[in-house]
């Protein structure tokens, strides 16, 4: 009897704490950054922005900052922000925004599924939706436009660059991101195709889950087993950094004039500096600055024009250790 009561007590506490945590998350998701939409009926255009947690990555931090700097009162917007990395919390925030009657709903979805209903609700309520950064599985007529990065193109650009290096042989250490994420699929796809087409050798193909230290272990393992390699293709900057740490510990030269070509992605400022210093060879861009493109679209809509392009692909370049300049870093580093 006693044990049962204790168990119930424990369960009650457990439930309470869970609810607390849930509330915390929900509260965070509903945090408003500016004035409420009710007051903003005058000149300001009300916008509800749903994004992932800015702490997720440097990319996300830059993306969020860009949005906040663009959709300001000075620019004529009353913006509300909601952050969550959970799809269902994002959908709840979307429904809240729609109820508040925002004019535009900007969404960077955590997951591709489940957005049909909220987007349909938005359409019915007269709210226009613009997707940014990530697409969702929903009919195209439910949203005005999607401003996204083309991860396949990012991978293709990198692989084309690698092909142009015309190395006598290609022995590649391929360090992947979290399996199934859009960035991983795009960046892996291009390399896999090139490996099959050109007869390159993948010494190792392994996921490090975006983790620098796991990438270090994987690279170390290849070095320890005595296999030779001359390219490290890491799917983000962190993992490239980890791999380079392993090379340094083993005294293997890398970068410009080095034995191993280092390739990273995302354009973190520190990574571009590595490229500039000649310690890395290549860094592919993943452009987080979508706000200005979204602003153009909204301005067009406000002027009564039609938006013809459903999917707007962000322009993305790359940094090469032979051609990179300080101006490029200042302009594109995140």
């Amino acid at each position, binding site marked *: 009897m006693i044990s049962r009561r204790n168990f119930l007590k424990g369960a009650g*506490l457990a439930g309470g704490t869970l609810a607390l945590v849930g509330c915390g998350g929900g509260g965070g998701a509903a945090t408003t950054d500016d004035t409420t939409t009710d007051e903003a009926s005058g000149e300001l255009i009300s916008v509800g922005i749903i994004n992932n947690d800015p702490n997720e990555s440097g990319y996300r931090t830059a993306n969020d900052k860009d949005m906040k700097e663009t959709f300001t009162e000075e620019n004529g917007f009353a913006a509300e922000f909601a952050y969550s990395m959970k799809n269902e919390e994002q959908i709840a925030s979307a429904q809240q925004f729609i109820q508040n009657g925002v004019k535009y709903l900007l969404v960077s979805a955590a997951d591709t599924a489940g957005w049909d209903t909220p987007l349909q609700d938005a359409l019915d309520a007269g709210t226009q939706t613009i997707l940014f950064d990530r697409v969702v599985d929903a009919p195209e007529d439910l949203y005005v436009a999607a401003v996204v990065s083309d991860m396949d193109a990012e991978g293709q650009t990198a692989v084309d660059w690698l092909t142009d290096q015309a190395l006598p042989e290609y022995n590649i250490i391929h360090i*992947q991101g979290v*399996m199934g994420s859009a960035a991983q699929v795009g960046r892996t796809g291009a390399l896999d195709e090139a490996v099959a087409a050109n007869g390159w050798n993948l010494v190792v193909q392994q*996921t490090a889950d*975006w983790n*620098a230290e796991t990438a270090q272990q994987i690279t170390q393992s290849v070095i320890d087993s005595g296999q030779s390699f001359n390219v490290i293709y890491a799917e983000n900057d962190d993992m490239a950094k980890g791999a380079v740490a392993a090379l340094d510990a083993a*005294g293997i030269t890398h970068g410009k004039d080095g034995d191993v070509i280092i390739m990273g992605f995302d354009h973190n400022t520190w990574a571009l500096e590595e490229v500039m210093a000649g310690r890395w060879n290549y860094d592919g861009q993943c452009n987080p600055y979508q706000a200005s493109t979204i602003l153009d679209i909204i301005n067009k809509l406000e002027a009564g024009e039609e938006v013809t392009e459903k999917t707007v692909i962000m322009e993305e370049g790359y940094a090469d250790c032979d051609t990179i300049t300080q101006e490029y870093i200042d302009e594109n580093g995140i």
Partner: protein
Amino acid sequence: MTIEKNQDDNFFKKLLHSQMIIPIAALLALVVFNLIADPSFFAISMGQDSTGNPVLSGQLISILNNGSELAILAIGMTLVTAATGGQDISVGATIAVAGSAMLAVLCGGNMRPEVVTTPFIVAFIVGVLVAMLCGAFNGVMVAVFKVQPMVATLILYTAGRSIAAWINNNALPIIPTNSGFGIFGGFIPGIPIPTPVFIAAACIVVIFLVLKFTSLGLYVQSVGINERAARLNGLNPTFIKWLTFVILGVCVAVAALIKVSRISTINYQTIAADIEMDAILAVALGGNALSGGKFNMGSSILGAYVIQFLTTTLYKFNVASAALPAYKAVVVILLVVLSAPIVRNKLSALWKKIRSPKQTEVEVAK
């Protein structure tokens, strides 16, 4: 002759009943597998790093090196498990918090300092204090408010990484390579063995001295076995439970130092990701009951190195990325099932059956 036989018997019996048998057997299995598959796995060679310092390299060195953080965490996790009968799932997140605090102190507000002026020891002490504070918070939740450990530590598990990002204003501090901060996760110039190996060894020595010369081990076990009896015997279970979380906090800070030093920066979301699960697994692999009570520290630490041995083996054989968790899961299931008391009792009964005819023979001969 007979006496020798009996001693032999005793030795086997002792070994079979000892908790150490599980991690040792797992280790042997991995060693044998690697010996058969590719003996070069065990090769160790002397090389030089990019600055010309001598370094030892080889898979075995990598295992000892990369297993350090896990071994250190296993120490604290064993004590928490023994005293509270629950586990701390926030260690990965508190590593992020402690690591972030250390880097904040080192950088002193400037995210990209040219030189580091703060002594490393100051940063480390701040990290230790922060991690102890996190541990103390968990400890109060568990010991005073009697929340189940996994639920209590769920709070920091959820919030820790955001707190870590908040400490540095969500910016990315990077310690310059010329500062020498890299030695904690790399090499001390002139010494060819990775520094984390020494740090882990020091932690292991300290905990064994503490367990040998203080009553900590005894107190922790008595609280874990029967809290009420412990109280009746004059112990303070609340304090002892709380203390184990604070000790785990110290372990977390040491692990955080190694982690942030390895790459001289931090990624709040990915640093020490999922390490809590490996730390709990190390305790389970060591044959310790996850419901608390008696524990064997050496067994847990050995378990931590077995996990790293497994990870390195999987990398070595280039198991496909998508299949990696599945391989790990199969091995874990095998190990955990084998370490379950029911299975062990069955095995030991089987052993007795095999031995018993011979024993009768010996007796007859006598």
